């Protein structure tokens, strides 16, 4: 409790940095959100970005494309021996039947010019309409989750505790999004799912401590709320750390071995797990304390 202002300061700094990052750099939206196309392919022969770009220049000459070959993003897949690539290109400004044809042509042209060792691993085209809707849905889901959690906590605990947990939760959300923006992680549907899951887990951590505070408050002989909070945090510290460790162990396994499709998801949750543990100890209950004051029984 004594050091709470240090941690408030730290958290506020992190939040400000995160908001700045989100405002200036923004999120690196994947095609799920901004629309566009992904070709995940494995060529028979080694290739590189320049070669792939040249191939697209060739395709551009033969076909009418709605984007230029400079706009493609080529990413070599780690461990793919210079044969496996993810190629991204933007979506057309409108959903039309012609666009669908363009995508099919690009794939067949690419396959003809640089043979694949297999069928294409993944081919996705997302029109601009779907992406915008998904953004809206994601936001709705996040807001609904927060409201739902707030209501449940207000019902089960007193209002100040609920606010404490929610502030910790929003704190986690902003910092994790800031971190995602900082490392330039591609924000796709799985990352969104990770962020939403995080809401549940972050509040979960806070609840364990708040539950202990609720219990200790009733039986304490001391009239200092700060003491109750401190002892509650200490009593639950073993649990908080152990659960975080086991969760992180599983997440690390996922991060390292889980393959490319799940990397963003695992990264986000790993960051979130660490931030969540921090906030439930250093943010949730201190906020409750700030709102309640040190005198016990004033609010209940």
């Amino acid at each position, binding site marked *: 409790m004594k050091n709470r202002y240090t941690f408030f300061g730290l958290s506020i700094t992190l939040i400000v940095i995160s908001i700045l990052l989100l405002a200036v750099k923004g999120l690196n939206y994947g095609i799920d959100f901004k629309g566009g196309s992904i070709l995940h392919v494995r060529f028979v022969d080694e290739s590189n970005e320049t070669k792939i770009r040249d191939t697209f220049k060739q395709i551009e000459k033969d076909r009418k494309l709605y984007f230029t070959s400079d706009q493609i993003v080529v990413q070599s897949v780690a461990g793919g021996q210079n044969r496996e690539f993810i190629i991204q290109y933007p979506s057309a400004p409108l*959903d039309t039947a012609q666009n669908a044809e363009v995508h099919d042509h690009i794939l067949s042209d690419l396959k003809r010019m640089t043979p694949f060792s297999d069928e294409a691993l993944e*081919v*996705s085209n*997302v029109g601009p309409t*779907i992406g915008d809707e998904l953004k809206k849905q994601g936001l709705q889901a996040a807001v609904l989750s927060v409201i739902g959690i707030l209501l449940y906590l207000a019902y089960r605990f007193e209002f100040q505790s609920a606010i404490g947990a929610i502030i910790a939760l929003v704190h986690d959300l902003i910092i994790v999004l800031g971190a995602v923006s900082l490392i330039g992680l591609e924000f796709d549907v799985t990352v*969104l*799912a990770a962020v939403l*899951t995080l809401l*549940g887990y972050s509040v979960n951590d806070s609840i364990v401590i708040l539950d202990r505070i609720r219990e200790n408050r009733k039986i304490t002989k001391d009239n200092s709320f700060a003491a109750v909070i401190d002892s509650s945090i200490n009593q639950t510290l073993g649990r908080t750390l152990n659960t975080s460790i086991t969760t992180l162990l599983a997440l690390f396994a*996922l991060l390292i071995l889980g393959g490319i499709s799940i990397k963003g998801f695992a990264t986000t949750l790993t960051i979130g797990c660490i931030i969540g543990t921090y906030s439930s100890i250093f943010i949730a209950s201190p906020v409750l304390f700030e709102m309640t004051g040190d005198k016990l029984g004033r609010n209940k």
Partner: protein
Amino acid sequence: MKSKHSVKIIVVLAVLLFSLFYTLPSTKMWDNAFGTISPAEQYAVPQRLLEYSAGDDGASALIKFQVDRMAEIFNRVKDPARTDDVLNNVVDTARKALVDMGAEVRVFNPDYVNGNVSLRVAGKSKDEAQALLNGARLYSKLPLIVTSLFPRSKITLGLDLKGGIDLVYQVDLNSIQENDSITDAVSRSVEIIRNRIDMFGIAEPSIKSQDGNRIRIQLPGVKDPERVKQLIQNTAMLQFHMVKDQALTAAQLEPISPEGEIVLMQPGTNRQQAMWFKLVRKPEVTGRDLKYAKVSFDDMGAPIVHLEFNAEGAAKFAQVTGSHIGEQLAIVLDNKVHSAPVIQSRITGGMAQITGRFSLEEAQNLAIVLRAGALPASLIALESRVVGPTLGQESIKAGWSAGIIGTLLVLLFMAFFYKFCGILADMAVLFNTLIIFAVLVFFGGTLTLPGIAGLILTIGFAVDANVIIFERIKEEFRSGKTVRAAINAGFDRAFTCIIDSNVTTLLTVAILYIFGSGPIRGFATTLGVGLIANVFTAIICVKLALDLYYSGERARTLSI
């Protein structure tokens, strides 16, 4: 106290049995032992070797096998004329399955009687032919009575794991006929797409309309995505128009009267320039009058599409050809002129054919779409995701190894930190995973890649409830309570906390399920089931084990 325990024991054992029952058929072990197959794979694959005869030349053998669900498929198609195609598709799938197993299917001349199909494979002895089918895991070694006891369904893999196509189309509202309602056009489109896909022979398609004017199509394990997309997207509006004039550019055509005439183009090919046509606006005959369409070959061996009209269509056809001999009749498909042959004589009997300018595949596609009928509106592709089977396989492998390592780490940590109790919690975690699998199979849920991630996450987090309880027991024990009292107090005190924390998490998971789609739903499902199962395994199972173990003599020391 005793009877309370025995009720609990029965419940736990029942859940365990249920879980094993539904999980076992999905395991590799089961496959190796019994070679059972999932309903998805059962579709159109050789099931049981019925008859074998070596060829006269000794270099080939005729094998006859049963194809499962054939009757069902035939039933669905109803129209007897279409069964040819269905059979072809079924046999083709079977042939591919055998080829995948390394067989050389030499003579592709299928014979179908009562669900039994014969194929000729190259140079196989009877044992080899049998081994071929066994090796392909295509028929069950277990007697029917046993297999029918066990659930035949394996866990359903999502398209991201199994490979397949996920398409979202929007019905182009501008293209709907004026007197047609949107809902009607959408539902008819769904029906027609379903027919086309059925005729093409794809197992377990999911075709649904959503959000009013959208259609979502999910097709697992399709090998030729481009072709399937073509099959779905083609409106397949077939019309026959009288030709008024033709020229190399639109400008060279005679002036047209917009009310009675239209200008359409015939796209150019490598050998032929594009051509423009002035046509009578009103079609003489349309695809609506079509009774049947199938692929056959002309004298040169080039594929043609053979059309057969119903009585009304035949009459119209006879009338128009009779009165316009020597003139050109344009065959127009989706507003493009396909060809414009000169009418040689009056055509009676309602037979016609569309010749030239296509490959066998294109001809087959055309025959299918013509039979299934024209779409009432054109479709705009909003989203298309194709995951190849290779990526799916790799994802499963990666998920599997991450799962094993992650689980091992968590289990070791718990055993190290909480000793005997930790091992109990470990068992609870494994039990929890088993339950998640079983529930997924039972409710026909889908396991997706994010779902596997959710499973692994659950393993890391499932120990949480036990960690809370164990920490509490430790505390109570330190404060001087006996082992039994400490255990009881630990569970009692931790209970509200566990419920509160799980309910909030479940809340976000439920929202995720409602808002998410596809893979994300799979994630929400595993996570949600995991949370509920977790309360059961952590509170009831571990408590029961502790109660049973720490009774009588052993209740002096606590290994936690």
